[in-house]
Structures are given as structure tokens and as C-alpha cells.
């Protein structure tokens, strides 16, 4: 049996783990386009802020020898589903006699019994003139982060456009490198379709405290360059803002070229069934590139989150190795730091469209904008804040900013669809603090001998 994994992100690595837990003999190939292989993509944010050195991005505990994986640095250019084969180019770093490094390319062809496409997503490019100038950056890979750090060293002023978590990572990363940062937003506030007004204001206030200059209702129409290097941006109203760098994070798009060319079924991502199988049974997809059926909403959804990517990769691996195990898309949740405030986003919490992004952004899930008619309750103030989306019978979503004590119980209450009818009125009452009501109810639930309610929470277990 030969397994071929395309993509060295967390989905690919989780698949390898799962395959090896079931199949000790099969041959595993990992084809990675990123020269650095597997590392923590979300960790790039902390590399930009100097919280960790570059080496730290690579987990030391992944034992490639133990997994016996054939690694190949290259790009897959074509799939041949009817022949069960892939074609691509293999990159090799060659040193010339003068010591300079050059990448050599060599074509390869590989047959497979099971193929996993875990090629991820990439930043949507800015659709304005001047984006090819030096100094225009995005952040997808380690090499992008390196470029940003290098450019930041000789830049005084940067413009950041976009929305969501990634744009803040760029803002804070550049700020941490000592660059004057202008954050341009098209609308009236930050991440308006996921955060509510207070949450946006909290984040914006913290950014201002860090010295970031915010511009609302501002849009870039052109990047100005001299001798190929960024010197500023022209705004929609005609004004010119001088800067040495432009960083953008307007969203990500699944990398569908291979799947489309091989006529796999695609929508916004590669469509997969509950076994992570594409329309061709021996080709699987997982991670950012996969659009997974969500039994709760009856729709196929995209996520751009590490946790689900790992879960999907793991389940894809199990199914590739022959164990039929359906993957149930859980309630998407993410914990992140927005302007220094630890924030947990769980379930359905926002709605509509954010003008600063196109589609999905990294660390994002489409479910977060799928807000039904629900009532909201909130508590806390300033940086300790909880917002609950309360349905008829269950909690549908929550945003926890600052103190994270309640985010664990909330995560489980939402995922396991715990019946909240006994406390629903109190949660909505103006005289009660939702946080206290919740904490009390949770301790009652966990100490009572009643059996656990609803769906089990996903756990990694050795098969």
C-alpha cells in the first residue's frame, strides 16, 4: 500500500500519525511545497512579535524516523485519478562552485493507492495596481514572515489592510518590530461580522494604546512605488499616505487548482463526504482546502482553523488506512489573541459580511457568521467580557474575552448541546450576571451523577 500526502501542514501530519497507528507496513510519501516542511503556521504571529525564535516553530517531538516517511520537496502539478498517479516537480537545492544556492527542478511521477490533498489555502491577492512592488507583503508561510521581518528592519511606516485575526497579527508584528503602523479599515469598526460593537471597540482601543494609528472608512485604490519599491498608497478619496510597506490580509482561498484540473467535485473548497473522501474514492482531502459537510446546518462549510484541520487530517488518515470512521464536524472554535487579549470564539456568533475581507480569513469559520434569531446576553466589562448567543434550548455560541475560566465549560456546553432551559430566563435577566449563572450551573452539571448530555467531545485516541 502506498499513501501519498500532498501538503505538510497539520492536516498532512495528523494523517501520517493516523495511518501509522493502523498500518505499520505501508509506504508513506509526503510531498511538501513549503521548503521548511511542517511547522506551526499560527506560531508565525509570535515569531513576528519576537516571542519565539524561528527554530521554536518546529516541534521537536515529531519523529520522522519512527513514522518512516519519504519526504519530497516539490510541487504536484497534475493528478491522474484514472491511473492513480500524480506528476510534479521535485526541488533540490544545489550549490554552485561559487557557493551560491540555486533551486534545481526535476520532474517526477508517483503512483498511489490512497492520496490525500491537504494543500491548504493561500492569501487572496489585492486587486489594485502596484501590488508587485517590493514591500508589499502577506503572511502564508515562514518565508513570508522572514521577508516581513527583513523589510521591517529598514521600514519606518507601514500600512496594513484587511480584517480578521491575520490582519491584527500583521499589525502587532510590525508594531513589535518598531514600525509605525497605519491600520486601514473600510467600515466603521474592526471585524464587524464576527465581533459585536463593544468587542471591536475593546480591540481598537488596545491597538491605539499600542501606538497603532487606525483609519476607518478608508480604502486603498493604488500602491505607489518608485524604482519598484513601495513609497505610499493612494486612498479612494485621493489622499496619499506615505509608507515603506503594505501588508494585507483580506482573506484566504483554498488551493483548488489540482482538484479542478482533475475534475474532482469542488465548490468553494474540495467537497468531501463524512469519510473525507472526494468524488474520487481513493482521493481524500482535509484541512483548509476541504469543504466538509456539516450535519448541524445541512451545508458544506469551510474552516480555516488548526484544530479542525488536525482532526480532519487524522480522520482522513484512519479512513485511508481502511478504518471506516466518519468525521463529525464539531462546533468550530478558536482561541486567539486580539490586541493582547485572549479571546475565544465558539459556535455561531456573528452575521453578514465584513467589508475588509473576502470570504474566509485565517483562524476563521463560516459557521461564525451563520447567526440565527437568537438573543444575546453579556457580562463583564473592559477586557473581561462574555457574550452568549442563546437559543431556545441550547447555547449556540459565545465570545469570551480576557478571563478564560468560563471558556472551557462554554466550549463543552455548546459542543454537547447542553440543555440550558433551567437557567435560560436567568441568563437573559437584567438583574443576573450571566457569568455567575453559568459557573453555578456548570458546577451543578459536573458534580451531579446525571449522565453526560448530547454529543461526545472529540478526543484524539490511538486506534
Amino acid at each position, binding site marked *: 500500500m502506498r499513501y501519498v500526502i500532498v501538503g505538510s501542514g497539520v492536516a498532512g501530519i495528523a494523517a501520517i500519525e493516523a495511518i501509522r497507528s493502523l498500518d505499520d507496513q505501508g509506504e508513506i510519501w509526503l510531498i511538501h511545497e513549503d521548503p521548511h516542511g511542517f511547522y506551526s503556521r499560527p506560531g508565525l504571529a509570535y515569531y513576528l512579535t519576537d516571542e519565539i525564535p524561528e527554530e*521554536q516553530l518546529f516541534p521537536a517531538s515529531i519523529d520522522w524516523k519512527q513514522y518512516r516517511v519519504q519526504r519530497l520537496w516539490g510541487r504536484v502539478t497534475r493528478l491522474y485519478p484514472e491511473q492513480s498517479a500524480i506528476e510534479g516537480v521535485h526541488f533540490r537545492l544545489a550549490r554552485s562552485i561559487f557557493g551560491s544556492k540555486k533551486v534545481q527542478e526535476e520532474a517526477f511521477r508517483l503512483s498511489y493507492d490512497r492520496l490525500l490533498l491537504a494543500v491548504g489555502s493561500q492569501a487572496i491577492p489585492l486587486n489594485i495596481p502596484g501590488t508587485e512592488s517590493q514591500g508589499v507583503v502577506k503572511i502564508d508561510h515562514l518565508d513570508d514572515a522572514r521577508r516581513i521581518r527583513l523589510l521591517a528592519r529598514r521600514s519606518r511606516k507601514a500600512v496594513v489592510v484587511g480584517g480578521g485575526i491575520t490582519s491584527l497579527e500583521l499589525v502587532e508584528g510590525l508594531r513589535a518590530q518598531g514600525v509605525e503602523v497605519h491600520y486601514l479599515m473600510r467600515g466603521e469598526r474592526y471585524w464587524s461580522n464576527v465581533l459585536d460593537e463593544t468587542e471591536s471597540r475593546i480591540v481598537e482601543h488596545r491597538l491605539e494604546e499600542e501606538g497603532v494609528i487606525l483609519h476607518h472608512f478608508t480604502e486603498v485604490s493604488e500602491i505607489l512605488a518608485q524604482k519598484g519599491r513601495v513609497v505610499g498608497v493612494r486612498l479612494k478619496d485621493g489622499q496619499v499616505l506615505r509608507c515603506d510597506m503594505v501588508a494585507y490580509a483580506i482573506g484566504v482561498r483554498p488551493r483548488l487548482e489540482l482538484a479542478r484540473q482533475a475534475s474532482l467535485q469542488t465548490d468553494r473548497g474540495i467537497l468531501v463526504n463524512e469519510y473525507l473522501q472526494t468524488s474520487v474514492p481513493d482521493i481524500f482531502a482535509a484541512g483548509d482546502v476541504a469543504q466538509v459537510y456539516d450535519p448541524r446546518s445541512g451545508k458544506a462549510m469551510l474552516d480555516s482553523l488548526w484544530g479542525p484541520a488536525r482532526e480532519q487530517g487524522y480522520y482522513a488518515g484512519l479512513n485511508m488506512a481502511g478504518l471506516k470512521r466518519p468525521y463529525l464536524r464539531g462546533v468550530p472554535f478558536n482561541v486567539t489573541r486580539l490586541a493582547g487579549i485572549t479571546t475565544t470564539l465558539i459556535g455561531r456568533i456573528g452575521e453578514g459580511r465584513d467589508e475588509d475581507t473576502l470570504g474566509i480569513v485565517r483562524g476563521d469559520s463560516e459557521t461564525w457568521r451563520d447567526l440565527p434569531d437568537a438573543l444575546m446576553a453579556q457580562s463583564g466589562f473592559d477586557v473581561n467580557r462574555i457574550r452568549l448567543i442563546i437559543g431556545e434550548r441550547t447555547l449556540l455560541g459565545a465570545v469570551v474575552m480576557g478571563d478564560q475560566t468560563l471558556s472551557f465549560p462554554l466550549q463543552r456546553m455548546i459542543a454537547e448541546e447542553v440543555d440550558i432551559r433551567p437557567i435560560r430566563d436567568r441568563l437573559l435577566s437584567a438583574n443576573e450576571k450571566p457569568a455567575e449563572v453559568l459557573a453555578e450551573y456548570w458546577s451543578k452539571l459536573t458534580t451531579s451523577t446525571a449522565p453526560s448530555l448530547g454529543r461526545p467531545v*472529540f478526543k484524539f485516541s490511538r486506534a
Partner: protein
Amino acid sequence: MSFYEEAKRRTVLVAGQVVPDAARCVQCGICSFNCPMGIDVRAHAWRGEPVVNSRCLTCGECVARCPRGVLRFERLSIFKEK
């Protein structure tokens, strides 16, 4: 903090262990980088296992520095659940 509260806090810390929530972890490695004892906390978080390591001082460095609230102190039961 009163003496008793402080004493209680210390008792909990000494008897407790760092417990990760694997679903929140993104393997950034801030925990391992900051561990004064050089324990690879991140590897425990990947497997979702508590940091059972006699060198762990329960100093709280990793718990406090984790940007995603992955780690917390918990007193582990010595009795395994079946």
C-alpha cells in the same frame, strides 16, 4: 492574600499538574521555549497529556505565557477512569 489563601494556593500548585487542552493548541512552542526546566510542554499538548514530569516545578510560566489558554493547573486523580 491571606496566609491561608496563600497556603492553599501553594498546596494546589504542588499537588497539581499542568494539563493541556489539545484542541486549543497550535504548537507554537511558547510553552517549551519558556520552561525553565527545558520540558517540552508542547509535545504533551500535542498528545493532550498532562505534564507528568518530576522536573516540573509548577512554576506557571507555560500556563501564563500560552497565548491561547491551552494550559491550566489541575489536580489529577490517581485513580484511572475506566
